[in-house]
């Protein structure tokens, strides 16, 4: 297995006028190609900060972050970032939204646009491509947002509580939908969430973080039977894992 993502002794300190905030302390973990890794922890513990570090939007105060043995740089298009809510631009059609990463890139390539169209067709958004985001359902918009992250063919997908803005019904189906697409595209994924069942139903590896400054509390590899999140939720092991991680988080 190839280690695609590695964090070594990463610490991050924020400066404010009043204080110095220790957000992350000596965080080390790695992720193999194709893994689905979840980071879970109490709110405000700096989970999103970890994603910003991996994305190269923040530099660690000490320690190293490496993607494919290189320190991360947003310009390479190595990562695809998916945020809370779909963040589609309301004035762009779905196709233009999906092609946004191509426009940002320095050297545009006709093949990139072809790839975007292929993805749209593959995941059933072709007939919506000239529609505006408000004309689509929440689930469809989330799917469009996912395809936007896939367009630059990133090595790692970063998901920052991508389902938190959805209602609980759509949440389960969209979660299933996103999982299937990620598995089809064989993408390495780092998910940040505070939802324990979401983490268990999707991940190969779960990292539980402590309160700030964030340190690793424990690492789990739930090997639950089932090929989709919804199936995994039906499994007997699911409850066992849920209880275990719930206790971890609340002690």
């Amino acid at each position: 297995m190839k280690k695609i993502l590695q964090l070594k002794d990463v610490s991050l300190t924020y400066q404010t006028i009043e204080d110095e905030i220790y957000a992350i302390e000596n965080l080390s973990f790695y992720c193999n190609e194709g893994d689905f890794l979840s980071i879970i922890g109490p709110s405000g513990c700096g989970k999103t900060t970890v994603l910003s570090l991996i994305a190269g939007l923040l530099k660690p105060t000490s320690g190293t972050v490496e993607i494919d043995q290189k320190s991360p740089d947003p310009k390479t298009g190595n990562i695809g970032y998916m945020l809370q809510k779909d963040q589609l631009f309301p004035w762009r059609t779905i196709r233009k939204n999906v092609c946004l990463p191509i426009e940002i890139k320095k050297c545009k390539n006709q093949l990139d646009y072809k790839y975007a169209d292929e993805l749209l067709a593959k995941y059933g958004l072709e007939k919506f491509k000239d529609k505006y985001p408000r004309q689509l359902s929440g689930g469809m918009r989330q799917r469009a947002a996912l395809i936007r992250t896939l367009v630059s063919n990133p090595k790692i997908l970063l998901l920052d509580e991508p389902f938190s803005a959805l209602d609980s019904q759509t949440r389960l189906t969209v979660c299933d939908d996103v999982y299937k697409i990620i598995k089809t595209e064989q993408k390495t994924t780092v998910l940040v969430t505070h939802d324990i069942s979401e983490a268990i139903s999707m991940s190969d590896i779960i990292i539980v973080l402590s309160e700030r400054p964030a340190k690793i509390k424990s690492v789990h590899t739930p090997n639950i039977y089932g090929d989709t999140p919804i199936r995994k939720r039906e499994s007997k092991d699911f409850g066992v894992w849920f209880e275990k991680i719930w206790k971890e988080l609340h002690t």
Partner: protein
Amino acid sequence: MKNNNQFSANHIKYVKRIKKENRIVSISRFALLFFLLGIWELLAYTGIIDSFITSSPSKIFTTIIDLFINDNLLYHVGITLYETILGFLIAVAFGFIIALVMWWSSKIRRILEPYVVVLNSLPKIALGPIIIVWCGSGSKAIIFMAVLISIIVAVITMLNGFLETDENKILLLQSMGASKIQILFKLVIPGSLPTLISMLKISVGMAWIGSIMGEYLVSRAGLGYLIVYGGQVFKLDLVMASTIVLCLLATLMYASITFLEKKIIRFK
């Protein structure tokens, strides 16, 4: 469009009710106008009110015709339109650029903030004498006044629009490796289009205030001049007639921006 017979009776009833209400509203608007004009005309005609002071709709109408034929109404309209539109365009263009600079650099924004606050609270009309001394008593002074009155509000409105850009969307673009220029052109400016439209609407009203104020102070031509002149020689017919023309022009300009809004913003 579906056929009528595909809808339930209830739906047809509902649509009929809405359409009826719309009709009543538009008929009533005109009815109210004609009612007011009629009362005005009647009171003036029977001598209950003194038409020397209040004028009357028929006199206003004949004055407009007379102005048009004998006094070159179009010339005055042209002068005022020229001053207003030029003042409006200068204010909007510079307002937009200044707001952009203030968005781009938070340092410049912080430096300029107190100046903007002071200029915003100052009644610009107080600068009238200074403007006359600097620009002379012609169109230049009036345009300057129109710009001065509209530009500050234009800057403030536009800057607020830029600053309201969703932080998460900026983060998203940064994660794609976007530069600040790209963030500006892909997100901040297109996302502020609705704000731009409301800025245009506010500015056009402000530019009218500026140009008419300016004409009150200095001019020798224009609608503002006609109004002031009419007031000085006690020709209320002239004052009212010019005001009506002004009212129509201002509405027309506002309506053309609303038209522009519908053309540009299709995603809403």
